[in-house]
């Protein structure tokens, strides 16, 4: 039983760790905070899976994103001063194996996109990242946010329009 649980958790972990980390990182702009919050997300999943009651988690992916989202919100409630993105940190965090010019180009692109995204309101950030980056379906997003699929579609559309404007500015 314990072995199965460990195997099951490890599978989920390997499948989602990078995406959850990235989602949190983009929102908090700090490697240290992203690591702490991501650890907390998976620790909560591990604890939830170990519990017999309440019923086991039916959708671990939704659980992870929902927890990540809530932890980021809690983080900003505790530390309202938003940390500005630093290019040095981007250089450290990205796993690059490309040439120096390409590295610089990617660093600059990440900075631009991240700056624009950080100016979106929280819900818009989430739907953009989930839908376009993490390839979550409308249905999955609607379950995480507790909104109808139509509402999510509208939200994605509006978020995209806003991001378009912001990218022009940056």
């Amino acid at each position, binding site marked *: 039983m314990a072995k199965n649980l460990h195997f099951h958790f*490890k599978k989920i972990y390997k499948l989602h*760790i990078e995406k959850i980390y990235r989602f949190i990182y983009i929102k908090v702009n700090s490697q240290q905070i992203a690591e702490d919050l991501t650890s907390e997300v998976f620790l909560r999943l591990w604890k939830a899976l170990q519990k017999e009651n309440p019923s086991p988690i039916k959708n671990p992916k939704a659980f992870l994103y929902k927890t990540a989202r809530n932890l980021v919100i809690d983080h900003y409630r505790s530390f309202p001063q938003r940390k500005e993105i630093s290019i040095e940190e981007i250089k450290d*965090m*990205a796993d690059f194996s490309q040439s120096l010019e390409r590295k610089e180009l990617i660093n600059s692109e990440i900075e631009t*996109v991240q700056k624009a995204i950080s100016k979106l309101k929280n819900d818009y950030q989430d739907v953009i990242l989930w839908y376009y*980056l993490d390839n979550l379906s409308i249905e999955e997003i609607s379950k995480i946010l507790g909104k109808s699929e139509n509402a999510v579609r509208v939200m994605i559309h509006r978020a995209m329009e806003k991001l*378009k404007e912001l990218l022009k500015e940056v």
Partner: protein
Amino acid sequence: MNEQEIIAKLRVLEEIKPRRDWMKNTLRDITGQRTYLVNFNFLKTPAFSFAILMIVLVALSWLGLFNQPKSDDFKTAVLEIAENDVYDYNYYLEKASKVLEKAKTIDQTDKKSQVVKEAKEALEKAVEKLPSHPKNPKESGKIVEKVKVIKKNLAALGEEAKELTKPTKQLEEKTKEMIENEIYRIKVEAELAMLENRTLTDEQKELLKEAKNDYNNQDYLSALEKILQLTNQ
């Protein structure tokens, strides 16, 4: 900027990745168990060691069960020796079997000792010519079968064939070594094939090159060690 261009821009964020050691440590910290994110680390897991141990045990028990009474199938497995055969280990293994079979039917002591001497020479030659790396697993199986027949005949002769104990033991040892090499070879081949699709650092590439050299020189154990080193980096 159209939507497609924005999506393309968003994709650059995929470059954001967590540190690998952090990922590994976090998983370990959460579950409280030692875990491996690198696929090849299963080489160090109890499951892998157990699998290898089982293969070796099966091979050894195969050799160890030779003294048990066997069915007629085994008697028929002792083939007639064609004198024009190639004089390789097969020839000498079969010769030893046939001679020992014959020795069982001889009553005269002087004639029997002559046959035992002949069997000893055949066994020593077989040990000398036995390959450390068989061509394929099927060949290993055939060799093991032949050694099995020899041991059975030797057991039937008892004290009269005492001088054959040493070469037979040597034959067993060499067969055991051969099976182990075969296990390592199969393992190394599988690992090398998997590594072909992996992105490696310069240091890892160097180790892979060395592992391939060891493999080409049929030093499978060294190749496996290099692969382990490589995957632990």
